[in-house]
């Protein structure tokens, strides 16, 4: 009996010594909020700074870089859309992203489906060639790709970087579809075949809809990679009218780097699409990008 009490006492004593004391707990709690909180602020503050500085003039900025705007000065944004023609670059990026998305989804769905469902000749070779992408970064093939693009006359064609980006994304996407299809029972296709559905019809009207969750994930990953793509556009485009936003920003750096508020307005406009999407679908985006990273 007394032993029992003793052991309870010792447990409660132990507890008492550690984090359970109210003052220690409060202190721990403050730290737990403060440290990640401060870090989170550093993640968002640069964007906020960009945003409000966009409404200031160059002279106001050089007096105090952190101050809030005194009045709503809109000339920077006007300049961004008229003189710099940022709309054009946003359009270029959006157009490329659209075609890349369609092709990556289609290609990876087909590849992933066949590799997952069937054993066939050359399957291992196919698999191994797609694996290469995981070891060889696109930066290692930039120079030969540039020569190839020039040789086949694709330089400065707006569509010239679509296929390279598709191939860059294809491997991860294929593997994602593959592991997803493995969880879909083949009885689905068997039943459809018995009902007289052709192979192609089954593939696109029955399997494709069931694979929707993974295709959404692939869409998210591909969208952000493609929207932020830089290396291929750097080698493919000389003419300003084809620039994607990343490339255009890079080029502005040299030319306009003295007028900070103007540059900040430009960057802010370029961030907007990603920012809006992220604030609407952050949970899905985080989940999707993580799935892609781990599988890749």
């Amino acid at each position, binding site marked *: 009996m007394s032993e029992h009490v003793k052991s309870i006492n010792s447990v409660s004593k*132990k*507890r008492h010594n*550690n*984090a359970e004391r109210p003052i220690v707990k409060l202190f721990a*709690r403050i730290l*737990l*909020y403060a*440290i990640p*909180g401060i*870090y*989170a602020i*550093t*993640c968002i503050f*640069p964007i906020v700074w960009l945003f409000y500085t966009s409404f200031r003039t160059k002279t106001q900025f050089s007096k105090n870089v*952190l101050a809030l705007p005194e009045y709503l000065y809109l000339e920077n944004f006007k300049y961004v859309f008229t003189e710099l023609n940022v709309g054009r670059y946003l359009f270029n990026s959006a157009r490329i992203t659209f075609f890349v998305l369609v092709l990556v989804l289609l*290609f990876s769905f*087909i590849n992933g489906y066949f590799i997952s*469902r*069937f*054993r*066939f000749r050359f399957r291992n070779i*196919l698999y191994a*060639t797609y694996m290469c*992408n995981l*070891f*060889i*970064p*696109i*930066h*290692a*093939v*930039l*120079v*030969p*790709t*540039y*020569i*190839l693009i020039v*040789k086949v006359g694709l330089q400065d064609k707006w569509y010239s970087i679509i*296929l390279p980006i*598709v*191939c860059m994304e294809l491997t991860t996407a294929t593997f994602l579809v593959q592991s997803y299809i493995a969880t879909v029972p*083949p009885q689905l296709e*068997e039943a459809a075949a018995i009902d007289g559905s052709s192979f192609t019809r089954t593939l696109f009207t029955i399997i494709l809809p069931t694979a929707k969750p993974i295709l959404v994930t692939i869409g998210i990953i591909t969208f952000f990679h493609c*929207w*932020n793509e*830089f290396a291929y556009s750097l*080698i493919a485009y000389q003419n300003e009218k084809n620039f994607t*936003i*990343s490339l255009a*920003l*890079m080029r502005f*750096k040299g030319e306009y780097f003295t007028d900070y508020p103007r*540059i900040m307005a430009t960057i802010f406009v370029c961030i907007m699409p990603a920012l809006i999407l992220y604030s609407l679908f*952050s949970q899905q*985006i*985080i989940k999707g990008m*993580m799935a892609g*990273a*781990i599988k890749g």
Partner: protein
Amino acid sequence: MNERIKPKNSVMALYLVPIYLVYLCVFILPVILAIYFSFFNFRTVSSKTFVGLFNYKKLFTDPLLLSSLKNNLYLVLVCMIGQIGIAFVFANMLYSRLINPKVSNFFRTVIYFPVTLSAVIIGYVWTMIYDYHFGLLNQLLISFGFPDAVKAWLTDERSIMTVVSIPMIWQYVGFHLVIIMAAMTSIDKEVYEMAEIDGASGFRKAVSITFPLIKNTLSVCVLLCVSANMKAFDHILAMTNGGPGYSSSVLALYAYKISFAENNLGYGNTVSVAIMVVMVIIIAGAKGIMSLFKSKE
């Protein structure tokens, strides 16, 4: 396997071959071309002369290539400690039951946001933060009373790699944080409760429970970190373009500069081949070391 629903070979070929051909021409062909072109000297894109192993001789005696590789390895090391280390600490803090789950999720969402931005934008924003006259960093140093520490951050050769690595660490903490937190949710809550009854502190829980139980996830993080930093390119191009001189050059950037700034496409291809070889060795090596750890468990 699934023989009953397997389509005819011709149907399969019709689906798979076109995609495969695109992939071969667009991705595999440049790999082969890089090796082929590395034996040539280019005057323009279309006129080249065979020079045998000349480029390779140059490759093995090129101090700039070596310093670029060193910079890559430095980035790998610093980012591994920075990104995964900070992410692990934050993951343990945000997972604590002392913090409101809603707030914790909000922090996670905000910290992840930089991951979705392009490297050029990150590089750009940090160029402004590091700027001598108008940069946030120098302004903060002055207002907190350290005017002596003010300097032109992006032009000091000795510290440039550290300066350049900070934005890269900053951008990807969220990425590893999310991966680690997802792994932590799969740990049985009872394990933590038991530990708490025994009086384990937060630190003790992190080291003795979380760390060993998510070792596999951490090794995935390490692999991702290694491969991401071996191909670092955009950030550095946007911030310093490899400068001052070649002091912040990395392999991919070096190949780019050789090819386009110095117009030496032949040697640029040779450097590209070197990048491929180094990548394969390092990634295979990292995977090998990881699997050694796994089997020890």
